[in-house]
């Protein structure tokens, strides 16, 4: 019960006296939770057959369940109501007004959900795997959460993670509560949700604009620009680049050529994107051409020879790994590595990279050390920050946020958890940070200009506050929400070809997944 007491103490450190917005409250709770969790030993350490039985019994038959991470025990609470003053989890609640008490109750419930999720993750992918226990815990979670799409913000978040874990249990294709397969019927929904996300947050614009500005600067005097894009998606990034090119002062705008790398099955949608981009370019009077280039069928590896290069053009490579609209299957390490190292073969001027930022500091390292559970918790932390950010910026637009959560973020969460799970099982790790990989490979850093940095700051300035941008390296901007770093955009220069043999050896032996 020591942990419970600690939690109480931690709560008392929260600043309740100010009229705390829900997001502040959650942020505080998350931080405290993370600290208390970090101290906790693995759930399974104390487990044996008898404990499991007790556990299952208590979960199945309990009206209300508390999970104590320190002992790994589920238990029935002494006092049924969280609003009561005798609850050990919220000793401070006594001092609060009614509102705060209710919030404290919510918060305690949120903590409970988190603990349950962690327990489930532990059961699924921790040291001692026990799928049956995981199943039971997920059932319990679903009971607590009710139907998908309803409930408080934190309940919806927990719901998606529950779904993701359920998907792992069921194996193979993750089936979500809303059956969110990307098909033709859903396309309107997906696109609309994507637009909402773009309007409500800087997540997509940040990466696109930073990369585009770097491309503009690197090709300032060129007459022909060739962009090789790793993931063309809807082509949204290039609209603003074209606008910038078309409105360049001076003579006519340079010719822009885009080569989209496609995976098997992606040809049709890429073609559609190409048409849309061409139409947009025409509306600007921007000279433009579009072509596709296939990645290798099974390995999805990039071959520089497949890209048509024109003499005299400035070639740049764009690699946005931050998942965009659809719950597209993630890129394999080998695929990304082959693309990035292909920049050497192609003699690219710059390589722009947008990727999710891994956490930093002791907490994150501890999380890493805990394998799948650690990564699970890291993703939970990441997406709770995203949830918070959307809610803080648009507290009144619950319905819009729910759509974005369901259509865009939910699938992403499933993808991330699946990715983390498979990484655990497979040999040879995954690349957490492609930026670090590129540094190790000898890629040079291209400084982020003041214009670019200023642009990012102004972009964030459109929102209420809470977002921040940091320049963590001369060539890298990181977007974060409050204390959590979320996304990074960096600019690189490929090393000279003399290093090519080194890259090849990495590519083949260390990152071969299939």
């Amino acid at each position: 019960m020591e942990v419970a007491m600690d939690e109480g103490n931690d709560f008392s450190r929260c600043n309740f006296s100010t009229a705390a917005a829900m997001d502040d409250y959650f942020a505080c709770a998350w931080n405290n939770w993370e600290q208390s969790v970090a101290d906790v030993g693995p759930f399974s350490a104390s487990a044996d057959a008898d404990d499991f039985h007790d556990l299952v019994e208590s979960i199945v038959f309990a009206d209300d369940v508390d999970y104590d991470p320190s002992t790994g025990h589920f238990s029935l609470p002494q006092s049924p109501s969280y609003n009561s003053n005798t609850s050990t989890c919220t000793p401070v609640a006594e001092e609060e007004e009614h509102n705060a008490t209710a919030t404290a109750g919510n918060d305690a419930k949120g903590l409970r959900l988190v603990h349950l999720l962690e327990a489930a993750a532990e059961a699924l992918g921790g040291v001692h795997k026990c799928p049956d226990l995981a199943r039971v815990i997920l059932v319990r979670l679903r009971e607590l959460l009710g139907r998908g799409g309803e409930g408080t913000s934190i309940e919806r978040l927990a719901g998606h993670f529950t779904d993701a874990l359920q998907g792992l249990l069921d194996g193979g294709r993750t089936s979500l509560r809303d059956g969110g397969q990307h098909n033709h019927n859903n396309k309107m929904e997906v696109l609309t949700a994507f637009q909402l996300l773009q309007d409500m947050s800087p997540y997509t614009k940040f990466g696109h604009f930073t990369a585009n500005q770097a491309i503009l600067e690197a090709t300032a005097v060129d007459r022909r620009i060739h962009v090789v894009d790793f993931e063309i998606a809807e082509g949204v990034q290039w609209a603003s680049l074209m606008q910038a090119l078309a409105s360049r002062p001076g003579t006519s705008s340079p010719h822009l050529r885009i080569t989209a790398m496609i995976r098997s099955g992606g040809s049709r949608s890429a073609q559609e994107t190409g048409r849309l981009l061409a139409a947009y370019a025409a509306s600007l009077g921007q000279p433009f051409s579009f072509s596709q280039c296939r990645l290798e069928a099974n390995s999805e590896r990039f071959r520089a020879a497949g890209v048509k290069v024109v003499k005299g053009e400035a070639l740049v490579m764009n690699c946005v790994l931050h998942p965009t609209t659809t719950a597209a299957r993630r890129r394999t390490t080998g695929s990304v590595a082959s693309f990035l190292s292909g920049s050497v073969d192609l003699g690219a001027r710059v390589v722009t990279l947008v990727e999710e930022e891994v956490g930093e500091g002791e907490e994150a390292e501890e999380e890493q050390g805990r394998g799948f559970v650690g990564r699970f918790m890291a993703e939970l932390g990441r997406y709770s920050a995203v949830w918070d950010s959307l809610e803080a910026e648009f507290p009144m637009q619950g319905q819009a946020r729910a759509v974005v959560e369901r259509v865009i973020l939910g699938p992403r969460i499933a993808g991330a958890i699946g990715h983390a799970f498979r990484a655990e099982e497979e040999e040879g790790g995954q690349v957490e940070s492609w930026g670090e990989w590129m540094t190790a490979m000898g890629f040079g850093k291209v400084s982020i200009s003041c214009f670019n940095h200023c642009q990012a700051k102004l972009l964030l300035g459109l929102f209420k506050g809470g977002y921040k941008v940091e320049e963590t390296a001369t060539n890298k901007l990181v977007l974060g929400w409050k204390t959590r770093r979320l996304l990074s955009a960096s600019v690189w220069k490929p090393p000279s070809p003399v290093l090519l043999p080194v890259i090849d050896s990495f590519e083949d032996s260390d990152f071969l997944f299939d």
Partner: protein
Amino acid sequence: MFPAASRKPPSTPMNSSSHERAPMCVQGDSGLVLTTDPKPRLRWTAELHDRFVDAVNQLGGPDKATPKTIMRVMGVKGLTLYHLKSHLQKFRLGKQPHREFNDHYSFKEAAMDLQRNTASSSRIMGRSMNEVLHGTEAHRMQLEVHRRFHEQLEVQKHLQIRIEAQGKYMQSILEKAYQTLAAGQGTEAAGEQLGFVHDMADLQLFGGTGDLQLDNSHQLHLGSIHHLQPPDHGLYLTASPALIGKKMIMAGEKSPFIWDDEAEDDDDSQLHNIGIDVAPGVIDGGYEAKPTIPNADDDKLVLEGTAKMDRPSPLRVLNHPLSVEAINGMLINNRR
């Protein structure tokens, strides 16, 4: 030794105790050659410059070194932060390989310089510049600060255009998807999807043309700004350039503006517009700002030639490209 010296309120720009005023060049015992009369300036001899370059390299290059650290490393008496600051800036500029990026880089150097050395550069600069520096350097600093403000305006302008571009493109994607859907699925399914889109449009926050609306009589006009943020924060972004450059604070308005006649969710029938916030002190001349006051009865509209909406009606996002152009034309003209 040096920090103490430079903190003394100087009667002369040279804080060295060994400095003597003289009509000609003087070699102080620190080895500094100080020109004098009427404005004492430090002359960067080859030797001094070499020491400077050594110090800079020691510190990891011109981008990593700061005047303060250079000063410490060089350990030269009589050298002040301001000498080093301007010299470092010139040094950085001189090292730039890409001359064609001049505009950006010269600003960059100035801005980086300013950022490094002053926390709230503009205010501190303004106040202490004239006290601490002598005429020419103060003037130069002021120019840099002004340049920085102008640059920020530039960036803001570009950002606005880029956001609009992206919004326009998104609109085209949505249109195309809807057309495809209507063609492939027939009108019923399309109607269903449209219903969904219609709901979404009600929720539509803003897009490239998100502030254009049709009312029931299909008269085209620009919507008023309906805020739904708590009063302490009024940030608005629209495609309308008329609102750039002004932070609009909407205080006191509590009641949400309900668009649907039968609104199931009051919360979600609100249109939210976010505006570009200009940092205080930035010159906002050249941008015309028309504050719009939300009013349940009287919809003030942003631009001229628009009709009053006397009855709340369902929002629709305007998708017709021609009208978009027309409206954009109006916006640009109005902006002057």
